[in-house]
């Protein structure tokens, strides 16, 4: 649970996008587009509906004509190329009118309990212009240009779970199709990708008339939806320790189950080899100019080469082949390569690990309650299990607490500042669990081991949040990042990567130490191609299973 490790995680079978596409294919969800009312300038509205066995969900999309000077992927932007809400059901005209007054202004508007998410996207101007221009002239766009960017639009925020008036998680959590984390948000992005393809073809037709052609489905399939993610996401995994634990624990359990496979069948091995070959291509397309990621990509490509060499002579017939491979990787590969392999080796074993997806939600509201009868000694032990390393850190040294997390007055955006250069310390958010655990531990020194923690908390309510976390860690051992989240050297992109990898994102491209661009659903089947055969391994790029 070190940040370096979390910042090297890769998508896997348990990623939320793949959970969704598998479910939609398995249950035969039906797609329809009841509304597409967009003019020649690209302004209007559209509705995209997916209907499952019990319920339907609709993306209500608004397309805008955005001047270039207003296009910003900062969360504090005020206008976008397209804005969206995921509606719970199929909207009536009155719902669409209500949303038309609120969704285009995003945070400045209000949505209701009928909406499950609120989001927006901007065009990749360069690629958008190229694709519209080519299609309008009757030819297909340049493949290299498509792969260079990877998407026609990128979302700059996807809000769910009660934000801006939307339905709370509890409203949908008991529905089987929404029980796993972020399924509403993932569905919203899945349908956004369909809308974007339709819109680019619509604009090309408006521009080119009879000469215009539609985007070759094979090319369309390469395109994902981009996303720019800033600091807002980093606090999330600290603020939801039980939920984040469940993600990590289920993936670790999946890895353990596969390592426990005594003998790999020829089919399992063949699938692993095929997907590895496809991954060589998709990792080859992964671009970044950020020095940290450039080094990591270099290491990953070398790791994949090393893995290919290993496989040449690997004895899959001897006992526990996957376990042996993991042990080999511990010394032979970088953290990127180790996590890549750990995710890849789960692929042949859907029957063994896919049920773990159900354990990734946080269904345990009682974890919040502090057990006041727990002894001070036991709490001290728990603090040390997660943060033993932090007890000897000099937390007054500037380098160890150089940063402070705070929320800005304008737009309420989470930020990371320099504690000793900006007047932000009074506004600090509780996002340094290691430092706070060390402080609680120090305060507990004077208390006897057998005193109930309730007595301590009555005198020291300032340590209540740390004691709560310590008790949560008892049942959620992967809930705490075992690193300093306010050090001068912290890279918030590591936290972003950890969360986004569980979404199923690929092509991580850090743009600084605190924001990252990614791609979602690249190579995924569109609704008309979604089937049991296509629903699972799309993330590895073109090629059969």
């Amino acid at each position: 649970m070190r940040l370096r490790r979390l910042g090297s995680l890769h998508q896997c079978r348990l990623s939320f996008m793949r959970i969704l596409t598998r479910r939609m294919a398995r249950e035969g969800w039906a797609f329809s587009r009841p509304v597409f009312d967009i003019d020649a300038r690209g302004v209007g509205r559209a509705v995209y509906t997916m209907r499952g066995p019990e319920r339907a969900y609709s993306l209500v999309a608004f397309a805008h004509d955005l001047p270039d000077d207003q296009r910003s992927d900062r969360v504090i932007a005020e206008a976008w190329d397209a804005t969206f809400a995921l509606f719970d059901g199929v909207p009536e005209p009155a719902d669409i009118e209500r949303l038309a007054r609120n969704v285009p202004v995003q945070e400045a508007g209000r949505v209701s309990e009928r909406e499950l998410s609120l989001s927006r996207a901007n065009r990749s101007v360069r690629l958008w212009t190229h694709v519209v221009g080519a299609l309008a002239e009757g030819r297909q766009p340049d493949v290299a240009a498509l792969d260079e960017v990877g998407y026609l639009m990128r979302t700059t925020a996807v809000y769910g779970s009660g934000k801006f008036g939307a339905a709370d998680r509890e409203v949908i959590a008991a529905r089987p199709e929404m029980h796993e984390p972020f399924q509403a948000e993932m569905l919203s992005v899945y349908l956004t990708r369909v809308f974007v393809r339709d819109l680019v073809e619509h604009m090309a037709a408006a521009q080119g008339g009879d000469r215009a052609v539609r985007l070759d489905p094979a090319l369309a399939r390469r395109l994902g939806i981009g996303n720019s993610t800033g600091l807002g996401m980093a606090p999330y995994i600290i603020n939801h320790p039980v939920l984040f634990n469940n993600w990590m624990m289920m993936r670790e359990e999946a890895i353990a189950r596969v390592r426990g496979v005594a003998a790999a069948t020829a089919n399992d091995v063949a699938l692993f080899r095929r997907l590895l070959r496809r991954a060589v291509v998709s990792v080859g397309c992964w671009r970044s100019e950020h020095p940290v990621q450039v080094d990591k990509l270099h290491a990953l490509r070398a790791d994949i080469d090393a893995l290919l060499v290993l496989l040449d002579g690997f004895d899959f017939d001897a006992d526990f082949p996957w376990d042996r491979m993991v042990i080999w990787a511990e010394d032979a590969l970088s953290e990127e390569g180790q996590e890549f392999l750990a995710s890849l080796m789960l692929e042949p074993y859907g029957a063994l690990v896919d049920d773990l997806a159900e354990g990734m939600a946080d269904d345990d509201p009682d974890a919040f309650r502090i057990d006041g009868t727990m002894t001070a000694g036991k709490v001290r032990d728990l603090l040390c299990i997660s943060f033993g390393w932090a007890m000897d850190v000099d937390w007054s040294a500037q380098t160890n607490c150089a940063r402070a997390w705070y929320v800005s007055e304008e737009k309420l955006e989470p930020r990371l500042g320099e504690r000793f250069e900006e007047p932000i310390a009074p506004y600090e958010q509780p996002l340094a669990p290691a430092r706070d655990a060390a402080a609680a531990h120090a305060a507990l020194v004077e208390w006897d081991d057998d005193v109930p923690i309730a007595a301590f908390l009555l005198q020291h309510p300032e340590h209540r949040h740390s004691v709560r976390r310590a008790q949560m860690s008892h049942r959620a051992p992967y809930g705490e990042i075992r690193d300093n989240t306010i050090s001068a050297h912290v890279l918030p992109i590591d936290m972003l990567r950890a969360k986004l990898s569980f979404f199923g994102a690929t092509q991580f491209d850090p743009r600084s130490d605190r924001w990252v661009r990614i791609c979602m659903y690249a190579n995924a089947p569109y609704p008309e191609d979604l089937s049991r055969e296509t629903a699972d391994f799309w993330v590895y790029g073109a090629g059969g299973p």
Partner: protein
Amino acid sequence: MTMSFNEVEALAKKATRGAGYPWGLAEEAAKAVRWLYARDVDGCAELAGLLAQSDGADLTAWRPVQNGSRWAPKGATLCPIATGAALSDEAEALRDGELRIDQVVHPILLAPFACMSAKHLDMRVTIAWDGTFASTDGEALSIAGAASIPVADVAVTTGGDLDQPRPYCSRAKPAPDGLALLQHLARRTFAPATDESRLKGAGAGLSDND
């Protein structure tokens, strides 16, 4: 206008912090407000009633001093959040009989903590004051009498009737005054933006025209 529970919870947490409470108690206050709204009680109004008095006060004077089954304020009145947290932490004490808690401000804010105690004990728990009885079995809340009162001496016991259950709600409808006060207090947790923080703090600041 209705608000989601997430919105009122986030607001209550910031407002409580903004009024000077430590983060752990701010988290408790936020969960308490959410719990009350789910049972059709205006949690923001109750919390605002408390914070209007405790804002800026020396909170050590608002904590209970425990003398067996009698809890009393060190100062004039007790904070229901700090007291409620202790009530939940020490739920086991209710097995020994009635607990008397003096001078609790906005005592309905104790109900969410009584609920946690009830769930832990697997028994009903009732808080009572001036002819009002608020009972919970760890899930439902029943209130006989007036829910909202500025301050009262409270008795906490196990047992009680659930014959006047509050309806379950999925949205919060806060009254404007309480909401406005919480928003005012919440703003104190936001750092004033500077040009430097706009650029450095979020890390980007680039055009999106590529």
